[in-house]
């Protein structure tokens, strides 16, 4: 094969670009570990997973932060799943063509809005509104954060779920309609189940987005690292892992225990997102293989 | 007796899943004549064409055994310059695929890949190849228009011209008229009769009738096996093998 030197060079660069993704993931993991694991030696494990986060007095319990993230993420899911799935079904199956051309760009617009801007609106408009409307002590709470976060996660869920619904072969729909099913029956009993893997993936990616969101929660979730005592946690201020890192990193001294613990929180976040993504990919890969076997 | 341009010796192709589309094929293809590879689907004809320009390198081939000599050089040798081979052995596909360029751009593409930059050489090639493909009169005023605006028959002749622009030695045609109307088909077949004076042509026809119309030599393929081959129209009138007779008479296929 008489490939010129120039072509071989270009091909090499292209190949290197491809593998760079692996290099970056490893780099990120490495640096997180490097700066985060000292926390394990400087703070006893029991304390690290205790319920009190008060760095000024050397209390580095992560549980309130983890629970804060969980509460807000679950809340976001409760908002985003029904809205997201419903919108996806509407766009993919019910809306006429011209309406799709309006709805899809609008959802894409939401995806582009910076989270800091939504947080800003949250502080200045949304949370005072919630406070007066619901007559609660503070508008900066898990509730506000969940609502905003759910909204921010919507574009992810809507676009992935809509792709999944679109990918269902027309033959399935035609077959159902041919035996007398109504459109809705076809959608609910044939199309949606056929797309369930993609829809599940959409939900997981949406959750992943919610857990990783930083600025909006930092601005509207309040600022109290507390453990939940009941369902009223939704109406009280909480602190997420992401907000903690963002808020406190600017004030810590390099190399201090606080500094290492914040990196450790970063490791926890990294591992959570890793597991969500790996699970989602395994689901996709397995579905792909099953589909191949069915078609061959 | 014209000399052989291509000599195929004991060619066997195996895919990575074990399937053998071609088994122990031995055949010679004469220079400057139209040789027809015909037979029912799955016979291995298209695979054989793709061996001849090493296009099968792109597919999932596990092994290729035997020798394929073009002008006494084994093109299956790993040291072969595949790039220049593909310029010498051009291929027209079943479905006309025009590149997303102008008509002129489609024709100069191959030459530009080879490094040709001289405007006059390129322009001359455009004119020559379009004339050889009997397309010149129809498009000479719109060479800069997108090729995709041409009709199906014109597109296919453009694909033929694209190959001719490189001045190949061998032209492979894989069911070139399967999607075309009878008039366009006729034009292509007429071009081939002209072209065979200069080039070695191998045609996979889309029907036995086309095979009978165009063949100077014919080879019948069945399930990867070369059943028989002969010169002239003998194979269609008095085949040696019963299977050939059955297929030619339409008892199966």
């Amino acid at each position: 094969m008489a490939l010129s030197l120039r072509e071989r060079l270009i091909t090499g660069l292209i190949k290197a670009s491809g593998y760079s993704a692996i290099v970056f993931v490893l780099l990120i993991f490495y640096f997180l570990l490097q700066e985060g694991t000292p926390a394990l030696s400087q703070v006893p494990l029991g304390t690290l997973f205790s319920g009190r986060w008060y760095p000024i007095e050397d209390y580095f319990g992560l549980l309130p932060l983890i629970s804060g993230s969980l509460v807000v993420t679950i809340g976001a899911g409760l908002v985003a799943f029904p809205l997201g799935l419903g919108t996806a079904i509407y766009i993919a199956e019910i809306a006429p063509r011209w309406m799709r051309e309006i709805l899809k760009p609008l959802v894409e617009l939401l995806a582009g809005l910076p989270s800091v801007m939504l947080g800003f609106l949250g502080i200045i408009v949304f949370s005072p509104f919630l406070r007066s409307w619901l007559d609660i002590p503070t508008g900066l709470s898990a509730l506000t954060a969940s609502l905003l976060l759910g909204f921010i996660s919507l574009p992810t869920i809507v676009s992935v779920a809509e792709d999944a619904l679109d990918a269902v072969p027309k033959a399935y729909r035609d077959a159902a309609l041919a035996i007398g099913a109504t459109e809705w029956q076809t959608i609910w009993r044939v199309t949606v189940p056929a797309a369930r893997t993609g829809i599940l993936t959409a939900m997981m990616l949406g959750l992943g987005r919610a857990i990783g969101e930083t600025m909006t929660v930092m601005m509207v979730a309040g600022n109290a690292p507390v453990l939940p005592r009941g369902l009223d946690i939704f109406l009280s201020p909480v602190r997420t892992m992401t907000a903690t890192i963002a808020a406190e990193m600017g004030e810590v001294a390099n190399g201090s225990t606080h500094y290492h613990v914040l990196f450790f929180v970063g490791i926890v976040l990294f591992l959570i997102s890793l597991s969500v993504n790996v699970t989602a990919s395994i689901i996709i890969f397995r579905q792909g293989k099953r589909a191949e076997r069915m078609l061959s | 007796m014209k000399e052989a341009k291509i000599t195929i010796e004991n060619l066997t192709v195996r895919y990575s899943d074990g399937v053998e589309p071609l088994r122990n094929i031995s055949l010679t293809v004469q220079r400057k004549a139209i040789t027809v590879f015909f037979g029912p689907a799955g016979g291995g004809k298209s695979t054989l064409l793709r061996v001849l320009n090493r296009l099968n390198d792109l597919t999932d081939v596990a092994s290729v055994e035997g020798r394929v000599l073009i002008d006494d050089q084994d093109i299956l040798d790993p040291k072969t310059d595949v790039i220049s081979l593909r310029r010498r052995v051009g291929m027209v596909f079943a479905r006309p695929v025009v590149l997303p360029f102008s008509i002129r751009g489609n024709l100069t593409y191959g030459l530009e890949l080879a490094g040709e930059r001289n405007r006059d050489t390129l322009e001359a090639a455009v004119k020559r190849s379009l004339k050889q493909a009997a397309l010149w009169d129809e498009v000479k005023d719109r060479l800069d228009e997108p090729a995709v605006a041409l009709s199906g028959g014109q597109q296919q002749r453009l694909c033929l011209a694209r190959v001719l622009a490189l001045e190949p030695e061998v032209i492979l045609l894989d069911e070139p008229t399967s999607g075309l109307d009878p008039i366009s088909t006729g034009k292509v077949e007429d071009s081939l009769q002209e072209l065979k004076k200069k080039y070695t042509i191998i045609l996979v026809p889309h029907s036995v009738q086309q095979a009978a119309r165009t063949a100077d030599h014919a080879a019948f393929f069945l399930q990867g096996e070369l059943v028989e081959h002969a010169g002239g129209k003998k194979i269609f009138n008095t085949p040696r093998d019963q299977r050939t007779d059955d297929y030619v008479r339409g008892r199966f296929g």
Partner: protein
Amino acid sequence: MKASPASRSRYIWQKVVFSGLTVITLLTVIPIILVVAYILVQGLPAISWEFLTAMPRDGMRDGGIWPALIGTLYLTIGTAIFAVPLGIGAAIYLSEYAPDNRWTRLIRLAIINLAGIPSVVYGLFGLGLFVLFLNFGTSILAGSLTLAIMTLPVIISTAEEALRSVPQAFRVVSISVGGTRWQTIRRIVLPEALPGILTGIILGLERAAGETAPILFTVAAFFLPSLPNSPLDATMALPYHLFVISTQVPHMPVQIQYGTALVLVVFVLVMNLSAATIRSRARARRQW
């Protein structure tokens, strides 16, 4: 033929459900319009030539947002310099060269992971590697590199999809007339995929420009008296500026906050519009 009672109730149910879904979709979409409209309305009074081009005064309660604008511009350019070639290269590899084996699956897994890492974790990573280890300090360089790695997955996936959408037949034809793989890519595949690739780049850079968390510890400065002179300088940036003036500065006039938010919104609108225009023009002019 009159519908039976059973099927009539099915159709009634369908009407109910479809209305419900319409409401849900409206619940999703109307707030988007409201948010954008509200910021446009509230922020417009603040916009003036001075606001856009002057330096901030009086602890940013007065004056303009020019350094933040410039800072975001520099960061976006810096991100593009690193992320675009790398991203397109990786996409070309995945679409045109990569064999179907374990290593390729690993690359795809890595990309999915990069896409899922929280933005603040990127900030930590940028701090650890670029600011501290490589000693770039809080700088445009560190911020751009961090943002670039964060933007990589978006560019790679849209670019790869664009490349794959180019018909395989083109590649076969190009090879059959004696083209090499790179010639085929350079002359046919890449040009035809360019609109899609461009759309991905625009959307990726848009996201990078709007992110705050990754630049918090890698580049962003609260207030700088002068504009940055080199990539090793820190800089202000628009999203960080909005964050600061809406949470950290007492007695900040609401007007300025809305004005800053409006600039961000207009930026997003313009980017999205460009991407959509490129997409629809390309679809109309496509020769396949």
